C-alpha cells in the first residue's frame, strides 16, 4: 500500500525515535478517526489533499466545507472544520449563499460525479458562470458509488454498471461529460483543472492543483474547480491495483489531465 493512502494502518508514530525527523503526519484539519471508504478508494487521498491545502494556508479556522450527497457526504465526519450537508446536487447553491453572507471565509464544496454532473448540472454551471469565489472539489469515479454502482454522467462508453449492464451505449445514454472542459469555457471560471491520483507523479500535480485553487480563492480570483479522477474498486469490480491501472488506461485517455483555464491576476479586474 502506498504511503499516500492515509489511515490507521499507516502510523509513523509507531516507528518514531527521538533522533528521527517526522516527515509525514495527519493534517491537523483532519480528525484522527479511520475513514469508512473502501480499500483502494481515492476519497481518503483527496480528503488529505484538501486538508493539506487548508493547513498550508492556515485556513482551518475560517474554512467551511459543503458536502454533496453520496460517498462525499461524510466530509463532515473527517474534517475538523465547520461543515454543512447540501441536498443532492445543490452544494454550489448552498456555497453561494454562505459565501455571499461571509465573503471573508473560505468555502469549498466536495461533490461526486452524479451529484455535480447530473442532478446538480444547473447549479454548478450557474455558480461557475457567476464567478462565485468558492472552490469545488469534484470527485469523478465514473459511477454512483454509495447507491451501489449505477451509471453516472461520466461513465465511459462500454462501461458496465448496475444500470448499464450491457455497457454504456451512446445511442441510449449519450456520452460521458467532461466537466473541467465545460466549466473552462465560462467567463466566471478562474481555474479549472483535471488531475489523477493513480501515480506518485500525478498525485503531486493533484496536490499542486488543489493548493492553487484555494490560493486563488484567498486572492478573490473567482470560481475554482478541480476534477480528480478517482478509483472506485468496489463498484468497478477490480482490486485496488487494477483500479489504479484502469484510471491510467481507460479514464485518462477520455478525460485528459491538465489545466484548462487559469486566470492570471491581471485579467480579472
Amino acid at each position, binding site marked *: 500500500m502506498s504511503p499516500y493512502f492515509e489511515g490507521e494502518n499507516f502510523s509513523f508514530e509507531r516507528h518514531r525515535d527521538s533522533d528521527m525527523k517526522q516527515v509525514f503526519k495527519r493534517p491537523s484539519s483532519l480528525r484522527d478517526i479511520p475513514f469508512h471508504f473502501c480499500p483502494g478508494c481515492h476519497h481518503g487521498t483527496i480528503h488529505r489533499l484538501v486538508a493539506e491545502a487548508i493547513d498550508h494556508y492556515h485556513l482551518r479556522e475560517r474554512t*467551511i466545507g459543503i458536502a454533496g450527497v453520496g460517498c462525499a*457526504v461524510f466530509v463532515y465526519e473527517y474534517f475538523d472544520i465547520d*461543515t454543512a450537508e447540501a441536498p443532492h446536487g445543490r452544494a454550489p447553491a448552498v456555497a453561494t*449563499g454562505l459565501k455571499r453572507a461571509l465573503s471573508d471565509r473560505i468555502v469549498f464544496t466536495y461533490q461526486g460525479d452524479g451529484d455535480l454532473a447530473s442532478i446538480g448540472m444547473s447549479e454548478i454551471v450557474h455558480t461557475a458562470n457567476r464567478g462565485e469565489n468558492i472552490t469545488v472539489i469534484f470527485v469523478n469515479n465514473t459511477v454512483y458509488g454509495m447507491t451501489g454502482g449505477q451509471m453516472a454522467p461520466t461513465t465511459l462508453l462500454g462501461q458496465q454498471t448496475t444500470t448499464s449492464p450491457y455497457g454504456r451505449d451512446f445511442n441510449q445514454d449519450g456520452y460521458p461529460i467532461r466537466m473541467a472542459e465545460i466549466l473552462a469555457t465560462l467567463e466566471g471560471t478562474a481555474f479549472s483543472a483535471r488531475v489523477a491520483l493513480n501515480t506518485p507523479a500525478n498525485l503531486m500535480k493533484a496536490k499542486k492543483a488543489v493548493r492553487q485553487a484555494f490560493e486563488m480563492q484567498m486572492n478573490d480570483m473567482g470560481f475554482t474547480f478541480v476534477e480528480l479522477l478517482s478509483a472506485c474498486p468496489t463498484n468497478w469490480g477490480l482490486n485496488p491495483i487494477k483500479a489504479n491501472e484502469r484510471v491510467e488506461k481507460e479514464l485518462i485517455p477520455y478525460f485528459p489531465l491538465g489545466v484548462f483555464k487559469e486566470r492570471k491576476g491581471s485579467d480579472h479586474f
Partner: protein
Amino acid sequence: MEKRLFMKGNEALAYGAIKAGCRYYFGYPITPQNDIPEYFSRHMSKVEGCFLQAESEVASINMILGASAGGARAMTSSSSPGVSLMQEGISYLAGSELPAVIVNVTRSGPGLGGISASQGDYFQATRGGGHGDYRTIVLAPHSVQEMHDLAMLAFDLADLYRNPLVILADAVLGQMNETLEDRPYRPLELPPKDWTLTGASGRKPNLIKSLYLKEGEMEKHNWKLFEKYQSMKKESRYEISRAEDAQMLVAAFGTSARVAKTAIQIARAQGLKVGLFRPITLYPFPDQALLDLSRRVKKFISVEMNTGQMVEDVKLSVARDADVHFYGHAPGSPPDPEEVFEAIKKVY
C-alpha cells in the same frame, strides 16, 4: 402616530423584511410576486445587503440554506409552481433546523394553472409540503398592513424556533395597494446563534446536517422536532370579530377573510348574527381558540378559495356537537361578498 404610506402588498412585505434585518434575498421570477425581487434589487445594495437572481427556485432555496447556515437573515419569494420546486430545500431546512422565510404569493393550479389568486396551497404550506415528518410556521396576511407586519415578525419566529417559516399570501394581497402604518420593527428576545458556520475559530466545529444513519438517531431527531412543533402552539394568532352574540361563525383566512367581512356586514344588515374567526397563523392552527368558541357557537362555515382544505382543520378543532359547513370558490377569481352571503344564509 406612525407615518402613513400607500403601498403595494408585495412591496410592503419586502419593505418590512428589510426593516427586520433581512439582508439576503435569492429568488427567481414568477408572476404574481415579481414586485418582491424587483423591490429588493433596488434596495438591498443601499443597506449593504445582497440581492441575487438565482437560476431556479431550486437554487434559490439552497442559497437561503447557505446564507442561513452562515447566520444571516435570508428570504426568498415565489408563487405556487415555484414553491413546489422549493419543497426539497424546505424539507432540508426543517431537518437541519435552519431559520428561513419563504413567501408564497399564490396563484392557481394545479400545474401551470393561472396567475389569479387561490388558496389551493393551504395543504402544502401547513402539512410541511416536502418529504418527511416536519412542519413550517405559516403566517397568513389579509391586508397590505399585515404583509408588512408579518414579514417583520416572520424573521423573529424563524430564528426563535430555528425553523423555516412560510408567509402564505395570494395574488390579490400581493398586487393590491392600501395605506400602511409605517410601524417600527420591534424585535423579540432571541437566543444567540451559536450554531452557525462561520469557521471553527476558538470553538469546536459546527455541523449543519439532516442525515441520521445510526440506530435510533433518526427517531430521536424526529421526536425532538415534534417537541419543537408542539412548543410553537403558543405562537398561534387569530382575529375574532362580531362573535359576542353570533349564532354562526365564518372561518376564513387571507383574501377570503376580507370578502367574508363584507359578507358578514350584509348578513348583519339583514339581522343574521354572524361573526368571523380568522386564523393568522395557519400552522400552528389556532385550534384552542376555535374549540373555546365552539362551546357556545354551534354553527361554522369555512370559506376558502379552494375545494376544501382549511375546513379539515376547523373540523378537527371544534367541539364534537358543532356543525361545520364549507363554501369553496375554486381558483380563478375571489368570490363575491353576495355569493358568500348566500352561502351563509343557506346554512344559518
